[in-house]
């Protein structure tokens, strides 16, 4: 067996199959790892808007408006984030799909599941040891996974948008509302996914057990929901809402159309994507500098 000449040549990158931020083998492996979850969520988000709008259409608009505007107490409006009069429209009713647990929880589950698999997952399983025995930068492993997770999130919201677009164009409310109105709401879902994945990956970068990372992130998510609720419902404690990342997840406010919706999206996704990307950057630094315990 002969020695590869590039090893003894003294090149600083000798043997490394990738650079500081990228590794092709890790990219394809990450797609393999996330394939099952990706396909499951794609199926869910492909079907959900059709099912949701078909079920919603079973209640005629006048009856819905009557319940929303006459029966429900007015102060509950604080919870919806938009006036009930806006909810009681076709666009408003479609927008409710984006705050339905099927969308919100699926986006969160995606973020936590994929983010927690960045470092503490393979560290827990012991597979990181063999991977990092190769001349691969830790930052490249971390950021390549982040890129694959983000690309898959983009695919998922693409499926969601396609499904919403098709049901709004062809479903029971066809012609009542323009499908393009829902693009900002879908992009807000993407922002939430990147934000949760980034924070989870950052926690994972500092942790050694995936179950603990998932636990921490579930706690963080519940705290974010509570902070948002407290901020909404309590006047004196309104500032608490600003502590919640979910304060920037308001897809129901983004379906009004026009430049206002896009400028609001820029603010919301600026916050969500900004936090997500900062968390990824912090995670890459933490992972690059920390000691890695031997597999147990």
């Amino acid at each position, binding site marked *: *067996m*002969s*020695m*590869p000449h*590039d*090893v*003894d040549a003294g090149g*600083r*990158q*000798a*043997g*490394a*199959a990738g650079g500081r931020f990228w*590794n*092709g*083998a*890790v990219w*394809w*492996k990450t797609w*393999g*790892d996330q394939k099952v979850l990706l396909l499951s969520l794609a199926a869910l988000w492909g079907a959900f808007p059709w099912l949701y709008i078909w079920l919603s259409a079973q209640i005629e608009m006048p009856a819905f408006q009557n319940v929303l505007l006459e029966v429900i107490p007015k102060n509950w409006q604080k919870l919806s984030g938009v006036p009930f009069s806006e909810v009681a429209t076709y666009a408003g009713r479609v927008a409710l799909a984006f705050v339905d647990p099927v969308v919100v929880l699926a986006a969160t589950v995606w973020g936590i599941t994929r983010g927690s698999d960045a470092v503490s997952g393979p560290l827990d*399983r*012991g*597979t990181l*040891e*063999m*991977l*990092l*025995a*190769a*001349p*691969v*930068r830790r930052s490249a492993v971390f950021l390549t996974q982040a890129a694959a997770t983000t690309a898959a999130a983009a695919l998922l919201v693409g499926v969601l948008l396609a499904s919403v677009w098709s049901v709004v164009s062809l479903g029971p409310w066809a012609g009542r509302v323009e499908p393009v109105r829902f693009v900002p709401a879908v992009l807000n879902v993407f922002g939430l996914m990147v934000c949760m994945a980034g924070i989870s990956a950052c926690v994972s970068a500092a942790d050694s057990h995936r179950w603990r990372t998932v636990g921490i992130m579930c706690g963080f998510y519940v705290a974010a929901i509570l902070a948002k609720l407290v901020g909404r419902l309590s006047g004196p404690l309104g500032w608490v809402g600003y502590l919640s990342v979910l304060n920037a997840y308001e897809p129901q406010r983004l379906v009004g159309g026009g430049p206002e919706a896009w400028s609001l999206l820029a603010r919301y996704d600026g916050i969500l994507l900004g936090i997500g990307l900062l968390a990824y950057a912090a995670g890459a630094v933490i992972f690059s500098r920390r*000691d*890695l315990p*031997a*597999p147990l």
Partner: protein
Amino acid sequence: MIVRTAALTKRYGSFAALDGCSLDVPAGEIFGLLGPNGAGKTTLLRTLLGYLTPTSGTGTVAGYDCRRESLEIRARTSYLPGEARLFRRMNGHGVLDFFARLRRECRRDAAARVADRLGLDCSRQVGRMSTGMRQKLALAAVLATEVPLVILDEPTANLDPTARGVVLDLVREARAAGRTVMFSSHVLSEVEETCDRVAIMRAGKIAHEQSIDDLRRGHRIHAELRAPFPGVPAEFTGRLAALPRGDRGVVLETDEPLAPLLGWLATLPLAEVRVEPVGLQAVYDRFHRPESPR
């Protein structure tokens, strides 16, 4: 020297997993690292490869510093962890493809040949492989990587005797190809059989270092005499250790050639005599018997 450490230390709070470890490993040798669990072998190897940052001291591999240049070190090293865990959803072929894609020094065809020699069925999913099969798969990826230094942490653990033999043959072939192999093991016989040099670790330190050639020169002579032992003649002082055993018994230990001693031995009033090589076990026991000084 391909590996050189000087006072390399890794502390976790007040506990020193590696305590001022100084070691030189010459290029082209098979170097054995011995010691009980917790002696610091794995910590030493993982510190050299950059998994752990040393608390103090220095460590270099092929001239590259383990604190600042671990990427360069890993480009010149192939490492088998103590417990090699692989991607459970892939099959054996997928794992070997992955490592061949991950680093260009890992030769996919060579990995297939190693797997074949180890009798491994690569079509099976890793999650359905036994511990020994996973170990063979990891060995195929590691031993097919053409780099100057191969580090194997307990490579034969979990393997059947046939596979152990094949692994030791592969280690010797790696040396014949000009590579250095550093391996830790608890099986002293295979270390003695394969290595050129060994270091024995204790409590994070290198307690002893010896070449196997020196070890093979060492002999122990158990003698029962019909009269009291007259003592070691002046010409052998410093080259022959005499350890009395009872009134008429003596154990003589030497690292020198035996021939010059035989004439003197013949003059002793011998009732019984037995000559045996010192062996690695005896050397190891000097440092790791419960009564050995700490």
